[in-house]
């Protein structure tokens, strides 16, 4: 049980950390990483929710969710990186200088 809480709690912590980092750090790459950290936090929490004790099989639903979520997060990251690259190629800097 404690493990579950630890796991879930650290997930939430990760989420908050990611949020903080996303907001305060301007460079694109750091924001991307922050987003992924947030995602990892959510997924951690979900995975922790799936735990039903050692005997019972884990709840499959959160697992499915996490898998889908990871796919989505990866594609989003890819798209963001592509954008960053475009900006970089145009201007030689990926900084968000709007």
């Amino acid at each position, binding site marked *: 049980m404690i493990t579950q809480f630890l796991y879930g709690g650290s997930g939430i912590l990760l989420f908050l950390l990611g949020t903080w980092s996303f907001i305060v750090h301007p460079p694109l790459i750091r924001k991307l990483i922050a987003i992924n950290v947030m995602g990892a936090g959510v997924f951690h929490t979900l995975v922790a929710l799936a735990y039903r004790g050692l005997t019972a099989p884990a709840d499959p639903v959160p697992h499915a969710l996490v898998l889908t979520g990871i796919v989505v997060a990866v594609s989003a990251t890819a798209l963001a990186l592509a954008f960053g690259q475009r900006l970089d190629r145009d*201007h030689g800097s990926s900084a968000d200088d*709007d």
Partner: protein
Amino acid sequence: MMIDLLALAVAFPLLGAVVVTATPSHARGLGLASAVLTTLTSLVLSLGVWRDGSVRSDFGGWGAPLGIGLQADGLSVAMLVMSNLVALAVSVYAGSYFSATARRHFWPLWLLLWSALNGLFLATDLFNLYVTLELLGLSAAALGALSGTRAAVAANLRYLLVGLLGSMTYLMGVALLYSRYGMLDIGLLAEVIEPGLVAWTAMALMFSGLFLKAALFPMHFWLPPAHANAPAPVSAALSALVVKAAFYLVLRLWLDLFDPVLNASVANVLGLLGAGAVIWGSWRALRAERLKLLAAYSTVAQMGYLFIAFPLLVATPPGLARDNLLAAVVLLAMTHGFAKAGFFLAAGLVQKTAGHDRINELGGAAQALPAATFAIGLAGVALIGLPPSGTFLAKWIMIEQAMIQGLWWWVVVIMLGTLLAAAYIFRVLGHAFNREPTPYRFVNDARTEIPALLLAFISAFVLGLIAQPLWTLLDQGVLG
């Protein structure tokens, strides 16, 4: 039969996207074909719901209580019809708008977005909603950057990041709810949910994530550059549909899920933000230098009106008045969808002809394109909320409710926004009256001008005068 339709409404565009990606040389024809098919499917589906009530279908063996299913009720169908008609018009318009190379990228992304949109309106469980939301955001950002200019890419990168932040927050909220109740289907959750820290936190997380996506003031900062720099048909879809999807979700959760949890204070927070959006967005639109920027800020303002409805909804006791109010909100969202899409499409034509969209120098282009200018005018009527547009009817009902409830400050905000809207719309239209040579004919390029004109016409004349079916439709699901 109905089951198939629900799936088909999502599957057709998805399938189309795949096919179009595979055969880029026939992108336009195939894309248009799937657009027509999708729209037809949605219309038939809507007709069914209008006549026989809401339908639901479950997929992949995950029936209730886990629930991965699709459901069409009045509210979702209303949004579905609006979205699909707008999307169809945008498709026709885009068919001749884009160059051959841009077409290759446009159609797959566009159909993907459409599929996500239909999925979002029809999904019944929180996680599917997350997936469609995310998919919507991704495809929208990619489409927005299609023009490839630096400004567009930068703006859409920001949009993408904001969208990600929003969906992550939303997902966290979903996770919290699942942790407490172990289910995801909205209908089932609504039966068990009760006020408490978990529900509250989940609600705060989910709503604030959606606010980001709905560009609610002051989280609208990403919207004007992203919408203003996208290609015209994309701007139309973004402004008319994508932000509307986020609002739809807020409304849906508000009505169907969090009803036992929420209270007047939350509604007031929403209303306050909405009021800020109305005033600030209108004001910024008034001072905008470029036509599309003006339209984008106008979207910010119009989203504000939708959120002002929440405090009114909470204050109104259930009954005919509340039903009217709810219908008014939906009508407002629909009208804005048509109007803003028409506006953007027409603005795109003007921009193409003039080579720029600086409002103060638009005279000649406006004069040369009577149909486009007319579309802007008609859409403007709906944006301002002048009769006989749907906006007028909706505002009338909202103001009346506000008066009855004694919440006159919302009336002040709405009227102020209306006047500001009149000012910024007529600031544009004023340039159409100049001493340039008279255009030869009214319509110059039917394939782009007619969709714009039709959308604007529907927003200004059809929705307000023939609003009765909406009430019938909403009786199938949302209205008490």
